[in-house]
């Protein structure tokens, strides 16, 4: 990248800067004229006697037409107004133009930095952290955009304004001119010296803040370690020290910065003193007209502005220069990957034939990892790499997919010199799964198809006005040297997955999930997920078929009593009072089950149904029971969390309340106390809690309240609940709940397991498995995929690699975190799926190599054996040692 900021600015915005300079230059005469007109008004119109008129109206010394005093005044005033408008117009245009130019340059710079970050050799990420890179690309360069817009124009404009004004004052009187600029040399001498100190401190501040953000990122990542080690105080001490350092630096910056300001202000105030004294004297002497003095003072009013701007500009220039140097030096590191390889397209080319390593070597930070490996193995077979932890097998695996570049020798796969192959080719034709995988914080499905997104395959057919927007976006991206690829385009290379249609892709994904032993888990996720009935009416309809089929199946299996279905006309004894009343899924905060007693509409419905007092009474009885049951338990007893309706901290309040009411001192319950009691019955599930408080008469009344609730629902709450409707898919309930459409009955042995078996059966017979899997694919995996287990993430990575059908699949100890059964299943599946293709596995256990066609034994970075397992097992000492150590 360009070494200095100004070189960078010139390289990418020379024409725009020149245009700004030109326009600025054009604006100056108008500015000069606007200074001149007030003088003309005073000298030619006001400071004259009526006999002098008519007088000529002059512009730049040319008399145009003769006018009487008042018309002449109006004409000059009109001219002044016109000039003010022109000057304002120029300023407006220049500001907007340079603002946009600055933003474009900023966009370009950020993009270039980001491309560089993507080109970092992977080893570099051991030295810099995300915490350092993020602020550099985001906040640190932010101010550069503003500066770039000003870089050339500001000194010219403000300098021009200043010079114009100074020139004007000189034109009025030389002494006044001298007085106006007399103090500038002093300022020019002192300010830069102070500024240099500020700059150094600024540099230190940027560094400290960067270190701080790195530390914050680190402690976020290592939060479990901190908690497990109980080192919070130590961590905070470290942060306190860092904040302290930053405070000190900023402190000193403030002191110096305001000293500079003070000096400037003082010197600026000194000049008017000269003006009034010298100018006044000259006017009294008669060698300076009053008009000239006023005009000079008016012009002087314009001097401190530009001068201050110039000084600020100087400060900002220094700031920006430092920032640019500091940021760019962080991104100018040796070993950056070639940009053409990163972004180059990969037509044709495939990896067939042989894998050849010639004197292959890898050294990192002076440490030899791979040392002179020579080998030639035919592709299209399974190859195992075994060795101990320091053998370099993981490095070799990474070299094979060029995650790292060799420092010596060559690696040729199928005639392709690996170091010259574009990443797109390797990405398409070689799959790689490492020991731990981070997923993108999007859906499971998107993570699976991520491996197919090398380039936009089908552009979106935009219609107006979207087409115009897209065109503008492309133009703007080009102007800043950004990528013009459309994020909205279809990036999924269906051909790569052998799936031309979306349905075919779903099938291929299902197959890949099978290979990765992930189908069952995705199916379970799918049951807990849901589909959008508006977007997928057919699927929703088919799920409803399953809902209708389930009761019959339960009946046939004699399991009908395991589920109590939702029936709009029946009270569900396995659901809570709240669920029975609402009879739907609450959406958002409107009908939050926890806060129903605070909901005016709900309480209104209950009051109308005459249920308020009954529920208060039930609440009292629940409270009484809870107090009786839990009063003796020590605090924090887990029964409170598991069983009690009342938390431990609330128990004393309820105890007091119950004691007061039972002592006969009922009185009027206040609002809060009523809420306390009313919150309890809503949670009651008759079948589970067996308190016998919700009898049949009460159930009938609650049913009536349920109807009243639905019928009287005001329009603003209509979207706060999705009612349970036997004939409608509920897009806010899970697939499983939609099929079940009821509650599991409490107290039935193995009920849940049996019902899910039956649901699985219904899903299978009605062919709904695809729908469930698709719902599972919509599951959001969380940041880094952390909503999935380690093992599941590995399986996702394997499925993703399988889905793009690579010529070669490299597994780098990818299965170690999986349980034994899953390891065997996946290995067998992969062996089957990759028959005829190449499967390369760096193995954590050498005995697993037995099933591979070819085995490479590494020891201390050198190749210690190569051949089939059977012959190596007897003849190769290195392998024998490894096997013995296992």
């Amino acid at each position, binding site marked *: 990248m360009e070494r200095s900021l100004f070189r960078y600015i010139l390289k990418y915005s020379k024409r725009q800067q020149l245009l700004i300079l030109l326009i600025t230059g054009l604006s100056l005469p108008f500015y000069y004229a606007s200074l001149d007109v007030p003088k003309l008004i005073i000298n030619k119109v006001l400071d004259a006697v009526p006999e002098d008129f008519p007088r000529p109206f002059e512009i730049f010394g040319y008399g145009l037409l003769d006018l009487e005093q008042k018309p002449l005044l109006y004409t000059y005033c009109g001219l002044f107004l016109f000039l003010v408008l022109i000057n304002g117009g120029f300023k407006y245009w220049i500001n907007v133009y340079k603002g946009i130019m600055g933003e474009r340059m900023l966009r370009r710079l950020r993009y270039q930095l980001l491309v560089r970050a993507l080109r970092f050799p992977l080893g570099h990420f051991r030295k810099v952290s995300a915490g350092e890179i993020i602020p550099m690309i985001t906040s640190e360069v932010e101010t550069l955009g503003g500066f770039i817009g000003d870089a050339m124009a500001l000194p010219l404009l403000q300098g021009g304004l200043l010079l114009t004004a100074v020139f004007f004052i000189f034109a009025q009187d030389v002494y006044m001119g001298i007085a106006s600029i007399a103090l500038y040399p002093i300022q020019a001498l002192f300010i830069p010296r102070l500024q240099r100190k500020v700059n150094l401190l600024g540099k230190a501040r940027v560094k400290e803040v960067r270190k701080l953000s790195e530390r914050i990122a680190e402690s976020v990542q290592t939060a479990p370690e901190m908690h497990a080690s109980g080192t919070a105080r130590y961590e905070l001490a470290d942060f306190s020290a860092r904040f302290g350092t930053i405070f000190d630096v900023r402190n000193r910056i403030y002191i110096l910065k305001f000293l500079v300001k003070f000096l400037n202000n003082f010197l600026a105030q000194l000049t008017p003193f000269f003006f009034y004294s010298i100018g006044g004297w000259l006017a009294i002497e008669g060698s300076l007209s009053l008009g000239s003095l006023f005009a000079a003072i008016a012009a002087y009013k314009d001097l401190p502005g530009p001068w201050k701007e110039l000084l600020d500009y100087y400060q900002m220039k220094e700031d920006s220069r430092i920032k640019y140097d500091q940021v760019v030096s962080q991104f100018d590191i040796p070993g950056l990957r070639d940009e053409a390889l990163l972004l180059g397209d990969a037509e044709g080319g495939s990896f067939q034939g042989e894998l050849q390593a010639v004197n292959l070597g890898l050294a990192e930070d002076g440490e030899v990892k791979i040392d002179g490996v020579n080998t030639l193995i035919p592709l299209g077979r399974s190859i195992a790499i075994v060795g101990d932890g320091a053998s370099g097998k993981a490095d070799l695996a990474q070299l094979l997919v060029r995650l790292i570049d060799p420092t010596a020798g060559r690696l040729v796969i199928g005639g392709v010199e690996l170091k010259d192959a574009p990443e797109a080719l390797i990405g398409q034709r070689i799959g790689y799964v490492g020991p731990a995988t981070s997923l993108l914080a999007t859906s499971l499905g998107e993570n699976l198809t991520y491996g197919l997104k090398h380039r936009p395959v089908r552009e979106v057919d935009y219609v107006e006005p979207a087409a115009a927007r897209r065109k503008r976006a492309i133009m703007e991206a080009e102007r800043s040297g950004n990528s013009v690829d459309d994020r909205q385009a279809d990036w999924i290379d269906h051909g790569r997955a052998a799936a031309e249609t979306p349905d075919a892709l779903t099938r291929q994904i299902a197959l890949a999930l099978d290979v990765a032993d992930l189908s069952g888990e995705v199916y379970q996720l799918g049951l807990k997920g849901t589909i959008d009935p508006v977007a997928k009416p057919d699927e929703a309809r088919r799920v409803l078929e399953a809902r209708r089929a389930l009761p019959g199946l339960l009946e046939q299996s004699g399991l009908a009593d395991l589920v109590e279905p939702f029936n709009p006309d029946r009270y569900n004894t396995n659901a809570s009072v709240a669920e029975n009343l609402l009879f739907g899924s609450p959406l958002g905060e409107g009908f939050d089950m926890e806060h129903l007693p605070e909901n005016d509409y709900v309480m209104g419905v209950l009051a109308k149904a005459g249920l308020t007092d009954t529920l208060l009474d039930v609440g009292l009885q629940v409270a009484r029971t809870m107090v*009786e*049951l839990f009063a003796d*338990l020590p605090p924090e007893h887990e*029964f409170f969390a598991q069983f009690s309706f009342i938390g431990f901290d609330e128990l004393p309040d309820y105890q007091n309340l119950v004691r007061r009411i039972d002592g006969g001192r009922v009185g009027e319950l206040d609002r809060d106390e009523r809420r306390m009691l009313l919150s309890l019955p809503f949670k009651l599930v008759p079948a589970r809690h*067996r308190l016998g408080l919700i009898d049949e008469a009460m159930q009938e009344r609650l049913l009536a309240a349920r109807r009243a609730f639905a019928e009287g629902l005001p329009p603003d709450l209509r979207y706060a609940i999705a009612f349970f409707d036997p004939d409608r898919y509920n897009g806010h309930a899970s697939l499983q709940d939609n099929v079940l459409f009821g509650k599991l009955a*409490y107290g*039935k*042995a193995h009920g849940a397991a049996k019902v899910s078996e039956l649901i699985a059966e219904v899903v299978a017979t009605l062919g709904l498995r695809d729908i469930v899997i698709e719902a599972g694919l919509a599951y959001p995996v969380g940041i880094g995929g952390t909503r999935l287990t380690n093992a599941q993430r590995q399986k996702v990575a394997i499925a993703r690699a399988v889905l793009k059908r690579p010529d070669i699949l490299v597994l780098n100890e990818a299965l170690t975190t999986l349980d034994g059964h899953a390891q065997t299943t996946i290995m067998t599946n992969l062996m089957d799926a990759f028959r005829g293709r190449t499967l390369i596995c760096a193995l954590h256990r050498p005995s697993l190599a037995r099933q591979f066609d070819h085995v490479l034994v590494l020891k201390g970075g050198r190749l210690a054996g190569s051949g089939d397992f059977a012959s190596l097992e007897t003849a190769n000492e290195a392998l024998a040692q490894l096997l013995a150590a296992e």
Partner: protein
Amino acid sequence: MTLQHDVEALRQIPLFAKFEPSKLKLLAFTSERLSFNADQELFRQGDPGDSLYIILDGEAAVLVDTPSGPITVAKVGKNDFFGDIAILCDVPRTATVKATKALTTLRISKDLFFQLVTQFPQISVEIMRELAHRLDRTTRDYREAVAKLKAMGGSLN
């Protein structure tokens, strides 16, 4: 069936007879009422033991696997409790229990059981007493069996 019924049922069981009513209520409230159909297994021999069952109503057979197939070694009925060995000794289930009639039980999970025992020492005493009874009974059975065997002219060595 309400909690009050369960409490009454528990009170009939010797193990809990001397409990305060509020403790019985807590036990009933925190345990799970589980019903089984005839022929349904509660658990199998070799399963990990995770809970203790108290029969509120119905009957079940205790079966032990032998090389010649499972044989019934005992019958349990109303007010009996079982499953304690597996959770006390942390061993797999020593026998299979299968409902012979419709069966209603209170299932007390391992965690809950240990919490009750540590919370309310009288439960441990009662359980000790019950286990001692069983041991006494088993020893008597054993003596009788040995005597019978000797009478038949055999020996246990």
